Structure formats: structure tokens, C-alpha cells
């Protein structure tokens, strides 16, 4: 059996890693689509870049949720 303290310590890095999977796939797909469309039609780049960055922020947030939960948990319970 795993010691509860050790399990709690392990859960934080797992949370960060698992939370990074989805945004990783999402940002990869998004950037690929962005490059594809700019390569086909270079004149849409100005309009696309703005929306690209907005969507980047939206997708990235899910990864940051994992990190923030890890950080708040650890600084509260294992700090000092």
C-alpha cells in the first residue's frame, strides 16, 4: 500500500502531466491548421493570427488549470 503522504506528493506531478496532454494535442492541431492555411493563402495571415492567439489562450487555459491546482495544493500543504 502506498503511504498517503507519498500518494499526495505523487498526485501533483501527475495532475500537471495529465492536464498537459489535452492542450498539447489541441495546440498542435491548431498550429498545424494555421500553418496549412497560411501556406495555402498567405493573404489571410493577418486575420488568422489574431484568432490564432485567442484560441491559443483558450486552449492553454486547460493545461494551466492542472498547474494551478498542483501549485495551490502544494504551497498550502507541503510548503515551508
Amino acid at each position, binding site marked *: 500500500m502506498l503511504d498517503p503522504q507519498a500518494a499526495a506528493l505523487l498526485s501533483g506531478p501527475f495532475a500537471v502531466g495529465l492536464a498537459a496532454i489535452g492542450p498539447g494535442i489541441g495546440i498542435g492541431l491548431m498550429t498545424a491548421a494555421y500553418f496549412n492555411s497560411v501556406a495555402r493563402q498567405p493573404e489571410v495571415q493577418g486575420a488568422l493570427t*489574431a484568432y490564432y*492567439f485567442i484560441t491559443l489562450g483558450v486552449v*492553454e*487555459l486547460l493545461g494551466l488549470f492542472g498547474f*494551478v491546482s498542483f501549485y495551490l495544493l*502544494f504551497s498550502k500543504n507541503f510548503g*515551508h
Partner: protein
Amino acid sequence: MAAEHAEHWMIPLNGLPAPFNQVNADTVLMAWFTMGLIAVIVLMIRRNLQLQPGKLQTFGESLFDFSRSITTTTAGKRGDVFLFYIGSLFIFIVTANLLGQMPLRFIQLFWHYPGELAAATGDFNTTAALAILTLFMYFAFGIRAKGLRYFKHYLQPHFLFLPINIIEDVTRPFSLMLRLYANILVGEILSMVAMSMCPYILPVGVIFLELFVAVIQAYIFAMLSSVYISLLSEEHH
């Protein structure tokens, strides 16, 4: 280690109810410093305006043009109504983020205080205030544009969507708040980790990344606020 980081200098305020009875003095100091810096720069820019702009005036005009490009890409000409809000939001956040990249830790060599002077946006109290301001703004502009018909959008596709539409009013400011706060916090921790691994060359790369992230996050915050305001103040088909 990481837990020492982002520790705040809390000053208790007696006689107020629970969540309001302390204030993060370092965040407030940095926010005031940011506002003062912006005010000084803007007053310097507008002191002598000329038809043929000098260096400072060109800088101010490019800031204005950039803020205006944020509102025009989302709302077109209608965006000029809320340009004042989006522009000041962008300028405040970008200044606060970039001030956080300055080596402010050296102040502790002369004056030891509990806490740390870092970016004002690295504390979620600041970003929550900004996000709640955006919430009020899109209510205000929506009601100004549509009157009481504004509240009809809660029932918009179907009345069954009412709970989702109400929850959206909570998640929008919450996600705005968390995105900016978490990005700045991650940046601070990342540069701290880089400095503890190799203090000579490695932090330069991380700090370059942070400068990029600082501008991008300010842009995203202003852009999303602009999208929300324009989305909720436009007439529906």
C-alpha cells in the same frame, strides 16, 4: 523553493468581514507603481503634440493604433465605443507584466520586507478585479445597446439553455482571471527554476520567453474582453 515564491506581504485590516480583512501590500504597491508609470508616460506623450510626430508621440500613436486594431477586428466601427476600456486594459496589463520581469528582488538588499515585489498581475486578486471589471463592462454595454432586451439572450437558442447561459457569466471572468494569473505565475516559477539551475546564461532564454508571454497574455485578455463586449452588445438576427 517554489513555496517561498509568490508569498505576499499581508497587512491585516481590522473590522472587515473575512475575505476582505487583509491586503497584499506588495501587489498593491506594484499596481500603484504601474499606474503611476503609465500616467507619467502618457502625460509626457501628450505634453507637446505636433502634426509631425516625434519619437514619443509615434510610440503613443502606435499604442493607440494597436489597441484600436483589437476592437476593430472584433466589432468593426462599433468598437470605438469601448476602445477606452480595451486600450487601458491592454496598456495596464502589458506594463504590469513587463515590470514583473525587472530584477526587483535586488530591493531586498537594502530593505528587507516580508513578501516579494513582482508583477501586479501575478496575484489573482488583481486579475480577478480586472476580470470582474470586464463582466460589468459587458453588462453595461449590452444594456446600453439593447436596453432590457439584453436579458433575452439568456433564453437565446432555447429556454433550456438558461442555466448554461448563467454559468457562462461566471466562467468567463473566472477563465480570464485564471489565464493571466497562471501564465505570469508559471513564468515567475520557470525563471526561478532556471536561475537555480544555472544563474548565468540559462535565465536569458527564459526571460525572452517571458517577455513574449507578457505581451501575448495582455493581448489575449484585451482581445477576449473585446470579443465578449461586442458579442453581447450586438443586435441579434
